[in-house]
């Protein structure tokens, strides 16, 4: 086992209202692959951003090659040999491979760019990595896997001592992953320190030497990969105490009719063969890690994105949903995870947002009946306990929780029977969170059927009657709340894809 090349100690970082990193430690060694694991929001990315100079730490020390350092920009980190290969590739598609690798530091012959020299140098890098890519090829013509190889070549050309891979395999095929692993092993044998961030448990077992686990912004511990099991790692990832009481049993009345049935739904890469049923009065939780395809499933179901194949049945009848208009007509309401972009019109009033989906109900002749509009909006303000000085208040001035209530009011005015809550409490403070939960339970008790997408395990366990788990665009499991635990949900969410 190699010597320690970089050590992060007691790293602390806060954003307004969030303690993102709480005295986190991390140790990267020469000639070793370190896995960094944790649920969504555990702080992995934040920690790497602190390391590569994108964020400034509040306290703590970073020791690199025996000296205490602090990088102030990604560029400075890069110049010192600490390089991150992002999941989304930062490549310029219309330039050649070599031009991309040497961008910003082109070889020159007088004032002319020396493409020949760049191609030669790039070829040398590829030879060293043992991959077959033509440096003269246009970047956009390469597969995602090959583009990633180029990104790695670029990192090596910077004389990297530490390379961080942020979910590198997400977009790769089996063979590309094998090739990637071969390169990573080569880099390791050359004495580089490598950090590998991934949700895929099988890859962790194959490629990494140690696993460091983070949870809720804290350092949990580090394991030797070959001495530990998948269950050990998952236990460390989810081992938090659940303060709010989880739901004990399914509260859906027995024999409640199926209001929505989704059959073999396919939509793009992120929704593959998804099937499920939703009952009247039920809260169906959708759990999974980032990029599991839950939001994409909801958007396809709601007609916001096109469906490739699959059937949707509402109250037993097959329906065609091609646009949000169709979905709304069939009584589906969608509350987006990104309220400001997809949920509300912030520069308009509470009343105007409330009646957005139902304006035709508020017409008297050709004119909008503003009295009636304000009256109904006021009723919902009272019913949902929305904190606003009045219905003519612009929504931009309300807090996140109250904005969410305005969106809920919008769909209640429409009398939707199926409500899709996508991350219903994201960016909402604790007090308002409880109110939203109460409201959702109340709606379910009144017979609405609710789909709740959530990345928070506690929320899933607290609210759901049944849970659908997704992983990389596929449904990987379905659980009744009585049999659901953090461990078995996480197991399904990280399941190896055959």
């Amino acid at each position, binding site marked *: 086992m190699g010597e320690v090349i970089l050590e992060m100690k007691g790293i602390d970082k806060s954003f307004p209202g969030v303690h993102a990193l709480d005295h986190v430690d991390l140790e990267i060694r020469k000639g070793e692959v370190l896995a960094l694991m944790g649920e969504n929001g555990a702080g992995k990315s934040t920690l790497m951003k602190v390391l590569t100079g994108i964020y400034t730490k509040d306290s703590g020390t970073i020791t690199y090659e025996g000296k205490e350092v602090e990088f102030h920009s990604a560029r400075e980190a890069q110049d010192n040999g600490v390089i991150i290969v992002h999941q989304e590739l930062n490549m310029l598609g219309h330039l050649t491979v070599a031009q991309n690798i040497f961008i910003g530091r082109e070889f020159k012959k007088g004032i002319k760019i020396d493409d020949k020299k760049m191609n030669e140098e790039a070829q040398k890098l590829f030879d060293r990595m043992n991959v077959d890519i033509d440096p003269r090829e246009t970047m956009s013509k390469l597969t995602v896997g090959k583009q990633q190889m180029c990104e790695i070549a670029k990192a090596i050309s910077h004389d990297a001592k530490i390379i961080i891979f942020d979910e590198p395999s997400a977009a790769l095929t089996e063979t590309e992953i094998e090739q990637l692993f071969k390169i990573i092993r080569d880099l390791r044998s050359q004495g580089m320190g490598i950090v590998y961030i991934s949700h895929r448990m099988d890859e962790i077992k194959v490629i990494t030497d140690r696993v460091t686990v983070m949870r809720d912004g804290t350092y949990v511990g580090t394991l030797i990969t070959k001495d530990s099991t998948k269950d050990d790692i998952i236990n460390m990832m989810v081992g938090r105490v659940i303060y709010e009481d989880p739901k004990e049993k399914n509260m859906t009345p027995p024999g409640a009719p199926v209001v929505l049935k989704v059959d073999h739904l396919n939509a793009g890469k992120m929704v593959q063969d998804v099937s499920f049923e939703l009952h009247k009065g039920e809260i169906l939780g959708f759990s999974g890690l980032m990029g599991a395809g839950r939001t994409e499933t909801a958007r396809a179901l709601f007609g916001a994105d096109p469906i490739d194949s699959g059937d949707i049945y509402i109250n037993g009848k097959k329906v065609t949903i091609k646009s*949000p208009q169709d979905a709304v007509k069939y009584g589906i309401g969608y509350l987006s995870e990104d309220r400001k972009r997809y949920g509300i019109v912030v520069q308009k009033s509470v009343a105007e947002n409330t009646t*957005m989906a139902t304006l035709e109900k508020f017409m008297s002749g050709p004119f*909008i009946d503003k009295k009636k509009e304000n009256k109904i909006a006021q009723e919902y303000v009272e019913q949902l306990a929305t904190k606003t000085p009045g219905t003519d208040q612009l929504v931009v001035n309300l807090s996140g929780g109250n904005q969410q209530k305005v969106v809920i009011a919008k769909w209640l005015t429409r009398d939707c029977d199926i409500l899709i809550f996508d991350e219903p409490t994201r960016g909402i403070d604790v007090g308002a969170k409880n109110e939203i939960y109460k409201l959702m339970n109340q709606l379910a008790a009144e017979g609405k059927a609710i789909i709740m997408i959530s990345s928070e395990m506690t929320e899933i366990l607290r609210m759901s009657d049944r849970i659908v788990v997704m992983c990389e665009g596929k449904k990987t499991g379905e659980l009744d709340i009585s049999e659901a635990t953090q461990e078995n949900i996480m197991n399904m969410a990280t399941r190896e894809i055959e």
Partner: protein
Amino acid sequence: MEKIKQNPFVKKVGFNRIVLCCVLLLMYGLFCALTGGSFAGMNRIMSALNYAYFLGFLSLGVTFVIATGQIDFSIGPVMFCCALISGYTLTTHGISMPVAFLISILVGFAFGLFNGYLVAYWSVPSFITSMASMNIAKGLASVYTKTQSVSWPQAADPDNGWFRNLVRYNGVPVGLVILLVVAVVCAIILNKTRIGRYILCLGSNKEAVRLSGVDVKKWEMLAFIICGVLVGMGAIFYVSAYTTVQPGYGDQYNNEAIAGCVMGGTSMAGGLASISGTIIGVFIIALLQEGILALGFTKDYQLIITGVIVIVAVFSDVLARRRKN
């Protein structure tokens, strides 16, 4: 300053509009002083009003389009196209005056439909569609009139001369009355109907409106159609004031109409529009153009000044939004 803004009267009328009215009066006073009082005469005012009528229709029209967050650079040439096609048909085929009016409005409607359809249903950027339809309008008018200018009947014409009363009858500025009535109708459409509500909302956040199950394409196209119809009406007032139209022109009115609209408080980013602001803005532009001529400068100076006004107005809108964020 904040105190003034909080005054109930100021709040009701709108701070921006009060400032604009002051600018209008100051400009008028300045021109009177600089011309040694000759500007104060009724002739100059009437002349400025003539300019304000047709420009007012264009500016009202483009207000709807800008409210959706789009833009229309074709309004000037389309107005000329309306006036040329209807005028040529009138003078060569002897149709009646009301039919000529109808043709003018229909041509405007057709261009609005064309622009709106491309923008809303085919997602072609409005910048491009309107640039293209500007050229189409010019070309179409030239082909139809065989590149001849068209002269609408003079006031003395016993059959059709009456239409010139549309701008002025026995010294009464009828055009002003009509423009204000149309402006009131526009304000009602914008603020009290579903069309206006959806236009403003989708200008603010189109995706959120779409995800509320609203047919955003339809409403977006409607904004362009309203604009087209108003441009067709503007053409009638142009010929009522000036009678002669030449093919191949009209570009400068784009800038002036957009300047009037943006100066009046309509945001180029969409979602925010003021009809009364647009009308005051149009009066400022019209007065400016008359004043510059009265001071003995050529039309070229007016082009420069309107250009600068557009930039200043849009920039202050950008500043205001930046401060809000």
